[in-house]
């Protein structure tokens, strides 16, 4: 069994499982955030729950952090191994003849997502950890909405988030169906995954973009 995760295929399967978890997390994250567009109170209740529930904080959050780190570290490791496996490159190579741009540039869309994630951590997660575990300020269940709205006042941050999510969309255009292929789902279902993949890759990032734009213009 330990041999499995050392094999090229085992690593791909683990990579796909981490990606599937990340996509599941994106759905949860979007569901919570989208409430901020409709109702300040529902958003506060949902955020307070996510921010204080021990299962979320001490089980799901570490799993998530491990998932993200595993995914991008393995992404870079496999990319380096693959470059070594290629050796000398072609003088003329027509990649567009047989594959999509998204599928050939996962490492670049991924790298941009990583840059975005670092900024996102500095923006939301670090202040959150400081609030709760370093400064130990007593919890105010109504603080979340104001914090969120405040973040989207500067246009540069809105622009940055939009670009970040466009790269996420490109990553998922290939990634969604690729993950199911990696874990060996048979082809009878492939068509369904391709369609779901396209919908997921457009709807989820677009949802996040809409939220950022909404709060920016709602407060002007």
């Amino acid at each position, binding site marked *: 069994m330990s041999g499995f995760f050392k094999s090229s*295929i085992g690593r791909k399967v683990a990579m796909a499982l981490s990606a599937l978890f990340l996509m599941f997390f994106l759905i949860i994250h979007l569901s919570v955030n989208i409430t901020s567009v409709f109702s300040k109170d529902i958003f506060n209740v949902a955020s307070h729950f996510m921010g204080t529930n021990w299962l979320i904080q001490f089980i799901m959050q570490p799993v998530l952090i491990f998932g993200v780190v595993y995914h991008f570290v393995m992404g870079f490791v496999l990319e380096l*191994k693959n470059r070594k496996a290629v050796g000398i490159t072609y003088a003329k190579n027509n990649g567009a*003849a047989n594959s999509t741009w998204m599928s050939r540039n996962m490492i670049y869309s991924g790298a941009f997502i990583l840059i975005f994630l670092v900024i996102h951590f500095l923006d939301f997660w670090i202040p959150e950890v400081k609030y709760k575990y370093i400064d130990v300020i007593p919890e105010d269940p109504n603080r979340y909405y104001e914090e969120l709205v405040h973040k989207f006042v500067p246009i540069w941050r809105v622009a940055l988030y939009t670009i970040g999510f466009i790269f996420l969309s490109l990553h998922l255009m290939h990634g969604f*169906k690729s993950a199911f292929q990696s874990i060996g789902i048979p082809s009878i279902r492939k068509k369904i995954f391709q369609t779901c993949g396209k919908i997921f890759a457009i709807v989820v990032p677009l949802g996040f973009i809409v939220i950022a734009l909404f709060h920016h213009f709602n407060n002007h």
Partner: protein
Amino acid sequence: MNLTLKIWRQKDASSKGQMVNYKVNDISEHMSFLEMMDVLNEQLVNSGEEPVAFDHDCREGICGMCSMYINGEAHGPDRGVTTCQLHMRMFKDGDTITIEPFRAAAFPVIKDLVVDRMAFERIQQAGGYISVNTSGNTQDANSIPISKHAADEAMDAATCIGCGACVATCKNSSAMLFVGAKVSQYALLPQGQVEASDRVLNMVAQMDLEGFGNCTNTGACEVECPKGISLENIARMNRELMKASFK
């Protein structure tokens, strides 16, 4: 038609190699690509130069030897064909055609366009077989019931000719389409069950040892494969490996 050819020339495995330009004239559109190469080589021999070394054998799409990367694609711009089945009518008068050997660290160049694909043989030897008692009381294969569906899929997988176009095309030099096909052709049939676990474990281990890359599901191999081997075979290999590893 008259053509300019840019061809990779490399004296031997240890020399550096480079692209060299040649001109060929009066090429008929009915010629196969290899016949066009024969015309070039005759021209080179007549003028006292070293002919371009390239692999070929059957010249009818079944041996898988004719490895050439033509204008940025394995076996050239046509679909479902090997280089020997590629016709010159796919090109126009005045075209420049770039011809390179199949590239992958695991397929080192031996000379010019000839590459060493023994890595495939070693993967095959690691498990791409079934053990049959041939002492005279062999069971007739037709007496074993096999569903039409399984037989068709196994046959499709078995049409892989081991040409290496999948590796040559893959941005990761992954051999998973080839190994997936070889694992599948046995995994789908009752005769392949006895050695199924060892087969997939050993073939994948050998594939990794040879230094092939990791599949990222771009699907380029499936498009360029002359035999139309489906990505489905990679998914099946992944399932077979999981089954074998976790039982």
